[in-house]
């Protein structure tokens, strides 16, 4: 078995997949804790659909190699709009997410079909929505981009840990103490968009929410403090990503869904363990 694994790891694309997989899993787990605690669990799903729609736009425009320059700004803008509090809005937060989510998915699919530049639409949709093998077909440039963005996200989380903690639990109190909550919400929105766009490579658009939510809620089954939830969530996310990648490569299963399946198993284990401890 070890020899087989060593053989696999002698190929750059396998090493790239594990590097990027671990980094994305780590970043998404950090963000996931914030989203779950702020009750924004479904925002990730909505934004991933926006990213899919943006990718369809970039394909229609013929921007393939630099598609990140189309997907990233669109996703960031929508993330900022979704997280912005507007008391006079006629639309509630969950309605906005639902509308944007299904709207983007429908428009994206419509664009891909109407202005198809590819011979195989089903393959495009399959690989984009479910991330069948995209993590195993990364270029070195994409790996470096992912490393830089991941380090930026981790750095922001570490250096602004106390501020993020404050606005996660009680935004009004944080504002009263003089914290620039609008700025930090903007920052969270940007980080969220960046992670979602990166995670599209790992698990595909439809499965990103699982990567954000499962590790956080798994950790919450056994941990009480914000710090411990964050640490355990990161551990679970990375272990599940590595296990899922290994299983999919060795067992010839689709990468994205295999990683999510390991996340589900981890949640069930933590859930049972949490109930047994009570």
């Amino acid at each position: 078995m070890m020899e087989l694994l060593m053989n696999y790891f002698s190929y750059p694309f396998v090493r790239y997949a594990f590097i990027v997989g671990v980094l994305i899993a780590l970043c998404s787990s950090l963000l996931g804790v914030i989203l779950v605690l702020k009750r924004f669990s479904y925002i990730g799903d909505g934004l991933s659909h926006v990213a899919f729609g943006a990718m369809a736009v970039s394909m229609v425009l013929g921007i393939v190699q630099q598609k990140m320059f189309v997907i990233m700004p669109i996703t960031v803008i929508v993330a900022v709009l979704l997280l912005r509090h507007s008391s006079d809005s006629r639309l509630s937060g969950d309605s906005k997410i639902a509308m944007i989510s299904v709207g983007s998915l429908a428009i994206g699919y419509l664009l891909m079909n109407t202005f198809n530049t590819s011979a195989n639409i089903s393959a495009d949709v399959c690989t984009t929505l479910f991330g069948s093998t995209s993590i195993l077909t990364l270029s070195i440039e994409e790996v470096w981009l992912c490393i830089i963005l991941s380090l930026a996200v981790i750095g922001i989380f570490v250096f602004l840990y106390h501020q993020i903690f404050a606005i996660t639990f009680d935004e009004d109190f944080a504002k009263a103490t003089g914290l620039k909550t609008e700025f930090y919400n903007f920052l969270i929105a940007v980080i969220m968009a960046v992670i979602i766009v990166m995670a599209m490579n790992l698990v595909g658009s439809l499965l990103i929410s699982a990567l954000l939510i499962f590790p956080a809620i798994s950790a919450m089954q056994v941990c009480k403090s914000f710090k411990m939830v964050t640490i355990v969530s990161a551990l679970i996310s990375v272990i599940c990503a590595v296990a899922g990648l290994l299983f999919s490569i060795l067992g010839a299963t689709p990468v994205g869904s295999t990683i999510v399946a390991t996340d589900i198993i981890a949640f069930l284990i933590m859930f049972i363990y949490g109930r047994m401890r009570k």
Partner: protein
Amino acid sequence: MKKALKVMIVLFLSLTACGKKEEEIQEVEEEPVVVATPEPEYETIENLITENETEEDTQEEEEPAAEETRETAEEERPLDLDITFMSSTAIYSAVYNMIMNPEEYVGKYIKIKGFFAVGESYTGEEMYGCIIPDATQCCVQGIQFLWKGDHVYPDDYPEIGTNIIVQGIFAYDRVDEYTVAVRLEDADMFIE
């Protein structure tokens, strides 16, 4: 005895049929389309592969002779790259990388496995290829091979969809800025 598979897999250029490099596909679409005359039960790659799996026993009977020939071929020239130990997910990705970075593999003696298919090259000639689907079987990659020796299609070739192993020297043509046609030259082909 295998059933005659009437599916003609469309093999163009690099045989890439996935969504990651859309420009390549776009170029492909401008080429004349290869005829597909599918029988209902073999319309999809899944059916093609399922059919192969049911015929593994038949193929295994042929294996000892094929194994000897394969070993002889490898003794003549040691392999630079053997990806036959990999799962289909990983083989798909490895071939994808060959197609994306063909210059890194030129002249290397490479061994791959997949299933046999016939198609039409970008020059309009009939060509024979080794096709590798991904795990979800919605995307396929493939490499054309030029079987060394005198072989006549269909008499000397296996049925379309047969699991095969191909080893040969990697070469490619750059058709345009985004499109490459990859192949294994001076190749040996064995039924898996």
